[in-house]
């Protein structure tokens, strides 16, 4: 899809695991893995806010637009 998720990059930078992040953000591990593997169809603003709060980053660090040719 044209929207890429760089969650794994940010997680590696902050050195936080999937399980820990899921507990902090209050979503299931399965949902977080769906987001990480680019299988998600939509992200709620509440989830995005929680992610940015926990990872101390901007939405643009997690989500990026990849131009398709």
């Amino acid at each position: 899809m044209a929207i890429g998720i760089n969650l794994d990059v940010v997680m590696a930078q902050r050195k936080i695991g999937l399980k820990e992040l899921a507990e902090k953000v209050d979503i299931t591990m399965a949902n977080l893995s769906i987001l990480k593997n680019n299988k998600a169809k939509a992200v709620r603003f509440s989830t995005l806010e929680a992610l940015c709060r926990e990872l101390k980053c901007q939405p643009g660090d997690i989500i990026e637009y990849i131009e398709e040719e």
Partner: protein
Amino acid sequence: MRRASLFTVFYWLVKLSKMFFVVLKHSINLPFKDKNLSFFNKKVLKNEIKYVIVSKNSKARDVMNNNKLVDITKIFLDIMFYIGIITWVSLPWSMKYFGRIFTIYQEFYFPLIFVFEVAGFLGVIIIWKLRQIFKTVRDQNCFVRENVEHLKIMGMCSFGITILMACRLFFVVTPSILVLILVFLLAGLFSLVLSQVFKVAINYKEENDLTV
């Protein structure tokens, strides 16, 4: 006369024994739940995401199992399926039996046997697909891509039965044949419409499930 009564006795004996075993199977709940568990384990090995979506509804699944209507529907579907197979297999003999009452079955025995055998086969396929759909409904995971295919096949089989019943009009014109044509035409249209509805529902469900 003796051969006919033996046939009816045998027919009813098989019917009652099948019903008895079906009721027996449903009175024991534990094996049924184990069957569901192995189904979910297979899903885990295959696709993690699908497993997530199914296990989300595990609480609702237990509620569904206690529902009487679901049990009754399952029993009915099983009974209809097995009786349908028995009737289809015993078609040549039952046609000979009916030929004594309605001479039309004796006159055109082989063409009518052919029509009824194919129509019976399509009917059994319809019930088989319906049972498969109901299995997914019981597991609270009924909006899957396979159900769209199943409903489409059900619709096509109904249309096939319509055409076959229309062929019977060449032999004898009775109002029951016209009613059957109309009923199966309606059933086929209903199944096709329902398959399109399922497609839309699956899109909604997928979008909802994949919203993080």
